């Protein structure tokens, strides 16, 4: 079984290499114009050039800072509001349809409104990011606080637990898994919105880099930028996944 897995892992590596080789060959043979489709080696070269010249770090830091600050704001607000609404069936019956409507609203469509009200400011960008990233956390938290097993609450009644003990010992542990999966979705939203906001507001960042590369036909820089954004997405999701496994070990 273990040898089996090793073979498959080796096969996966080989598959990726063969795929890259094939793409390289297609690019070398110029089946498609290199303006649209640079070879993987040229993309790697462009990436290496950016790293060597140090020009990649500032936009990378800007994008990550923007994404994380909007996301953290959304997480704090989402957990709190979700907990309040989720703990009260009465409140939820008033708010549910409104929340459902706001949730399906494309966050990027809110951006023009935010620009109207706040101008092209850094605060506007962070607000848009947190608006978009809010809903998955809020709904996760709401679901987590609402779905407490009724028998556990009965136990809490028999033990005569206070409001605070109930929250810390029963409701929060029940909500954590839902909140964490909401946080993961939110983080992906935050990255997407950072990229869109940078493109719209023309502020320094990876998203704006990609757009500028496209406008000046620096295709290998364009693909390199897309690659870096993919890596940022993968790494942040993986980090959160590791945190999730750690926090949920008790299950």
């Amino acid at each position, binding site marked *: 079984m273990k040898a089996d897995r090793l073979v498959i892992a080796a096969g996966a590596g080989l598959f990726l290499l063969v795929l890259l080789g094939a793409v390289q060959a297609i690019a070398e043979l110029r089946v498609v114009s290199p*303006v649209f489709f640079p070879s993987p080696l040229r993309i790697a070269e462009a990436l290496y050039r950016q790293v060597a010249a140090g020009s990649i770090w500032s936009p990378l830091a800007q994008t990550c800072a923007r994404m994380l600050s909007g996301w953290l704001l959304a997480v704090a607000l989402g957990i709190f509001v979700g907990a309040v609404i989720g703990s009260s069936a009465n409140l939820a019956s008033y708010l549910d349809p409104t929340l459902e409507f706001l949730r399906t609203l*494309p966050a990027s469509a809110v951006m*023009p409104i935010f620009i109207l009200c706040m101008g092209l400011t850094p605060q506007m960008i962070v607000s848009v990011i947190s608006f978009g990233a809010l809903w998955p956390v809020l709904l996760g938290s709401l679901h987590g606080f609402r779905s407490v097993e009724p028998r556990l609450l009965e136990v809490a009644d028999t033990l005569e637990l206070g409001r605070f003990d109930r929250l810390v010992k029963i409701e929060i542990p029940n909500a954590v898994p839902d909140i964490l999966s909401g946080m993961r979705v939110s983080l*992906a939203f935050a990255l997407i919105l950072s990229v869109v906001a940078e493109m719209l507001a023309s502020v320094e960042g990876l998203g704006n880099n990609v757009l500028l590369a496209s406008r000046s036909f620096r295709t290998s820089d364009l693909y390199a930028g897309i690659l870096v954004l993919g890596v940022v997405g993968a790494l942040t999701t993986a980090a959160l996944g590791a945190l999730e496994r750690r926090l949920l070990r008790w299950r």
Partner: protein
Amino acid sequence: MTRLPRGLALPIAALIAWETSGRTLFQPTDTLTRPSAMAAALVQAGMDGSLVQATAETLAGAAIGFLIASVLGTAAGIVLGSSRILGGVAGPTVELLRPIPAVALIPLGLLIFGFGVRMEVMTVAFACLWPVMTVASAAVKGIDPRLIEVSRTLEIGRLEQALKFILPSIFPRLFVGLRLAAGVALVVAVTVEIAANPQGLGYRLILAQQNLRPDLAFGLLTWIGCLGWVLNRGLVGVERRYFWRFAPAKRNA
């Protein structure tokens, strides 16, 4: 039935408060508007046909991209899900491509296709591909092995096996993935239009903002929200009506 009026209480109260304060406390400016002005702007856009045209453009971009992604995603998901070896070999490559935010492809689409429906379709299709593929592959893995054995004894071809056995048995679960992807398609289409592509509702929205028409901007935003809500509601309704008995929890009963 008692839930609906309660749910409507808050939006109605907010609209009334907004309208009255808009008439007494502040005057409409370049950035502030009133719900009545918003509705009027939306009705006007509906009368002169620009709203219909923009809606059609956005929905077309979203629908074509969604269809491409559904076909490709389902096919790839079935292939990757039905063979442990293939899934293991190609899986990591898929995992490398999946985290790329679809909006990062907007500049690439712009470079290859220029403005227009094609770059929008490409971005939408990329974004929708992954949810469909993941759900299809997971659903294939969950098929009763006896069903696959039956199809083997019938000695039918691979394609026929996929179309007559695998596809019908994964469809209820696949539909959930398709519903999620349809929501993604609309969001991505609007986003592409806002960020780059001069067509559709997203572009009208950004134009309204640049022309300092908050009434039209708020109206369009509400309209986009309604489209998304109706799409989601409709698909959830179809799912409940036709597929409820296939829900995983009830399947074993």
